[in-house]
């Protein structure tokens, strides 16, 4: 019988840090399996890669601030760069990674950095893998997810950066550059990671698909791109689960664009159109819709006015679609609508902007979808 989760069973082996890395790649989700190993592998961020290439051949490196939306390669890039600079043997002694899951009270951070920065780096350029690494004379401290550090902690970090400036380089990584205090940000070279453009995404996805021997058609790729909005991690996850699904069906089927939409939580057009029609927006039955079914349990025919809208919203919420997804798709429908006039569209846009803000603040989804519905209903009347 196996030891329980927390029992202090002596056979429960603590994983050495190095050990973690040796994992059968086939047991790893693709996002990890295809994490860039060198900065050359990093897709799309050409400008950044070009600048960093240079640092590989010089002994200097500025403090850096990487920022940009999720899944665009920030963490991958700094890890790859560090590995290329120091090689596998020196990585542990030369690179310290602190992230939001570590205790980041400033005293702890200070202590960790102090300990880490103490030993002076010694170059030992030929690594056990037979390759030569530049091993420049400094250590790298990666503060990943730095935007979740408090202002105070960031303030204290300034001093720390100065104290150890001679032998350490900091790399701050975050999503929102505005959450990093100015004195800290101004000490760093800033690198902005952009959402991935469609041609790099295509190349990367096709490379992965080919390596995994999965057939993908152009419509599948373009759906992956449109549903992941520049987040390559998401695109890869969708691709993988679609691949698993298609391989498991009997007989194995091809991945379709519809599979991807389903996985990505896209609301079917028929549902959005039905919603719009309830609100008095004229939507002709499209070609896309013919195959889809209307939502089950459509509101009963005798309802009118407020109650009809309320029932429709409740039905939509029962389906569990995410409110922001509904909002995005409904927004597109309204803005691109052929006959609504500019004034009506502006009014609708105003309402949706308010709802988006409220949802980001964590407001109740049903109340806000209802709010949008009622006000759009009025705006287009």
């Amino acid at each position, binding site marked *: 019988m196996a030891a329980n989760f*927390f029992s202090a069973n002596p056979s429960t082996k603590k994983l050495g840090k190095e050990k973690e890395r040796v994992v059968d790649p086939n047991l790893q*989700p693709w996002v990890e399996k295809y994490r860039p190993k060198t900065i050359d592998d990093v897709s799309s961020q050409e400008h950044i890669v070009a600048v960093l290439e240079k640092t590989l051949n010089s002994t200097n490196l500025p403090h850096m601030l990487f920022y940009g939306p999720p899944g665009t390669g920030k963490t991958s890039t700094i890890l790859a760069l560090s590995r290329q600079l120091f090689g596998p043997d020196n990585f542990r002694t030369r690179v310290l*990674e602190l992230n939001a*899951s570590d205790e980041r009270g400033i005293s702890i951070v200070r202590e960790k950095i102090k300990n880490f920065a103490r030993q002076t780096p010694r170059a030992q350029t030929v690594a056990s893998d037979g390759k030569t690494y530049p091993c420049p004379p400094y250590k790298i401290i990666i503060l990943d997810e730095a935007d979740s550090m408090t202002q105070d902690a960031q303030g204290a970090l300034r001093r720390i950066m100065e104290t150890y400036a001679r032998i350490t380089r900091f790399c701050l990584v975050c999503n929102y550059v505005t959450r990093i205090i100015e004195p800290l940000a101004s000490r760093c070279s800033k690198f902005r990671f952009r959402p991935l453009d469609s041609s790099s995404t295509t190349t990367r996805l096709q490379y992965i698909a080919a390596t995994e021997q999965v057939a993908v058609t152009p419509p599948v790729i373009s759906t992956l791109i449109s549903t992941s909005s520049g987040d390559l991690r998401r695109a890869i996850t969708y691709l993988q689960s679609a691949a*698993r699904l298609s391989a498991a069906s009997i007989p194995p089927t091809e991945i379709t664009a519809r599979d991807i939409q389903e996985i990505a939580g896209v609301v079917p057009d028929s549902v959005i159109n039905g919603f719009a029609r309830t609100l008095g927006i004229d939507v002709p039955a499209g070609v896309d819709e013919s195959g889809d079914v209307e939502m089950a*349990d459509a509101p009963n025919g005798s309802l009118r006015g*407020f109650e009809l809208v309320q029932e429709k919203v409740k039905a939509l919420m*029962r389906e569990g679609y995410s409110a922001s997804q509904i909002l995005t798709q409904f927004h597109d429908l309204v803005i691109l609508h052929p006959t609504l006039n500019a004034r009506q569209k502006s009014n609708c846009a105003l309402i949706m902007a308010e709802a988006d803000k409220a949802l980001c603040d964590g407001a109740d989804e049903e109340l806000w979808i209802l709010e949008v519905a009622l006000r759009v209903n009025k705006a287009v009347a």
Partner: protein
Amino acid sequence: MLWVDQYRPKTLKDLHYHEGLSQRLKSLAASGDFPHMLFYGPSGAGKKTRIACTLRELFGPGVEKLKIDQRVFLTPSRKKLDVNIVQSNYHIELTPSEVGNYDRVVIQEILKEIAQTQQVDLNAKQRFKVVIINEADSLSRDAQAALRRTMEKYMSNMRIILCANSTSRLIAPIKSRCLLIRVAAPNHKEMKTVLEYVAQSARAGKIPDEAAEDIVRDSNGNMRKAILVFEALKMQTPDLSGPLSIAKPDWETYCHKVGDMILQEQTPQRVMDVRAKLYELLSHCIPPTIIIKTVAERVVQGVDESLKADIMHWAAIYENRMRIGSKKIYHLEAWVVKVMSLYKHFFYDMDMSGFEDGF
């Protein structure tokens, strides 16, 4: 044991509805590169059941041998936190929101601990353990941030399954790291099938069509509620004949009373009375969002069509403020006053227009 628990499906193929989804989960569980997941959907749609079935698909019947523990965590300021934990040899399940703002401590400790221990059961079907985090949408931002890098670094020996009602309160980097799984509420037909299955399994005889219809309509897609109500009704009226009266939960009746009070009288005194009632509801741990929604829905039933949208509008506004602000009661009360004033003005304006028209 209650019927809901007793007749809960155990494997993916026992699940009664969303067959496509079950198929998808099965195919994912069949390969070792199972991703992190986020299950979302309305309450009572069967998210937890589906997660349990997925675990069983991953690890076999061993996951059903559960142990319930209470663990103590220490905050940095040495405060003690008690957290209930359900675990098997292969997974662990917790609800970090139990400890409010200290949820980050719990997440950090537990995940590190699990991430650093290897699966010791050599016969285990998977190399990783699964951590199920319930009510993930109430995780604080800090706790969510704490999950980010951990989810990547320890992927080789840990997978996370988040369970939430909605995705809007989760930060983008977390959503980016999970495969999102939407679990819609079952529709009427599907619910009836489940009720029939339960009736049959419990040897409760056939369930009359009208009764099933009533139960399903009352439950608004919440399968759990429907089965609970079914069992309760069966106790009261074994043959389920005649017009059934489905008892509402106390808090709901109470909220309706508050709604009626608002419409009966709009005076400072009435505001005070309503406030006492609201306090009562809050002190019974009824979530303020549920309170405002339930009261608002009651109120709109009793007012003129032209007022309904306004009342819901202000409910949306004040619910939002409640989330951002710290004292729930202020915003609930502000909304009550707003509604009273709207309602009063409505009659007042009618009177005025009446005068103008020379009546």
